[in-house]
């Protein structure tokens, strides 16, 4: 809500998980179904459908896992973990082609979007109305915090760079992060990777693009470490400091 809408971009490009019910167009043995599903794990090619709002060119997508949950005659229930922008309907169609008989998607439910799953803190609209009214009655903030999460939750899967207080306000004004501001960072950051810049209190400052890898950043004494993409924290939350604290 409000300022947290800026983190939506990080979610759109995050990995997803779906549970999908598909219908085969002929009888196929379970072993054959399992075998073909196994072939679709890893990287696959996909052409976005005509309805899609993206450029229609063949693109590679990662299928992290494709688990067979249940088979009942021609009804097959699967769980798919995949990269953002994977068209499940097309995936099911292609699985049907590989099986030879054809298949179509009957029902789809998204069970994960980035760090958000069904099992933790998922609420319905009824829950929202109910918990909100409980807060209004009792003034107990715990009811609100039960379903309203800090926006940092949306950034849980992004690699992080923690910065010192004196670097924060400059970043809030759009400045790129430079080496002296870095306190700690996740291992495995690669150049051009999207990262989240955090304060030592764990507050999100901005979304940025790493210029170098973790190892290189550790060795740098000056220069830009991450290019500012989207400021999340309001200016003035931390004081404007022209010199670095010791």
């Amino acid at each position, binding site marked *: *809500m*409000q*300022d*947290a*809408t800026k*983190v*939506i971009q990080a*979610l759109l490009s995050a*990995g997803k998980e*779906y549970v999908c019910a598909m219908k085969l167009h002929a009888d196929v043995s379970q072993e054959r179904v399992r075998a073909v599903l196994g072939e679709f794990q*890893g*990287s696959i090619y996909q052409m976005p459908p005509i309805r899609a709002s993206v450029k229609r060119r063949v693109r590679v997508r990662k299928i*992290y896992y494709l688990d067979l949950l249940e088979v009942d005659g021609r009804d097959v229930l699967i769980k798919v973990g995949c990269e953002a*922008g994977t*068209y*499940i309907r097309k995936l099911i169609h292609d699985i049907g082609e590989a099986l030879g008989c054809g298949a179509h*998607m009957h029902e*789809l439910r*998204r069970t*994960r*979007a*980035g760090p958000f799953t069904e099992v933790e*803190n*998922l*609420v*319905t*609209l009824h829950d*929202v*109305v109910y918990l*909100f009214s409980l807060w209004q009655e009792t003034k107990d*903030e715990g009811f*609100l915090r039960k*379903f*309203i*999460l*800090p*926006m*940092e*939750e*949306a950034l849980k899967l992004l*690699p992080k760079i*923690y910065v*010192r*207080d004196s670097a924060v306000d400059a970043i809030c004004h759009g400045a790129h992060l430079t080496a002296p501001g*870095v*306190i*700690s*960072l*996740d*291992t*495995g950051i690669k150049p051009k990777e999207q990262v989240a810049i955090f304060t*030592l*209190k*764990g*507050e999100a400052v901005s979304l940025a693009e790493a210029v170098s890898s973790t190892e290189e950043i*550790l060795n740098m004494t000056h220069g830009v470490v991450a290019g500012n993409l989207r400021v999340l924290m309001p200016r003035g*939350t*931390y*004081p404007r400091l022209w010199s670095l*604290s010791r």
Partner: protein
Amino acid sequence: MQKVRPPWQVKGELVTKAEDETDPNFGHKPEERPIQEHIGFGVINLDKPPGPSSHEVTAWVKRILGVAHAGHGGTLEA
């Protein structure tokens, strides 16, 4: 085919470059934000009912919570 680990199964590890402390007079730990600020920087993991559009549901949430601005992270892409 080579199996790739999903991002949520990759365990993160932190490495320190420098030491410093944070001033308690500025900012808040996310879980300690004053409630109005918390709402203004909040996200809801919402199980959207199948009928209405994401846009409609977002409008309802805005009305229920009394916030002026809200967005959604998209629903099914298939």
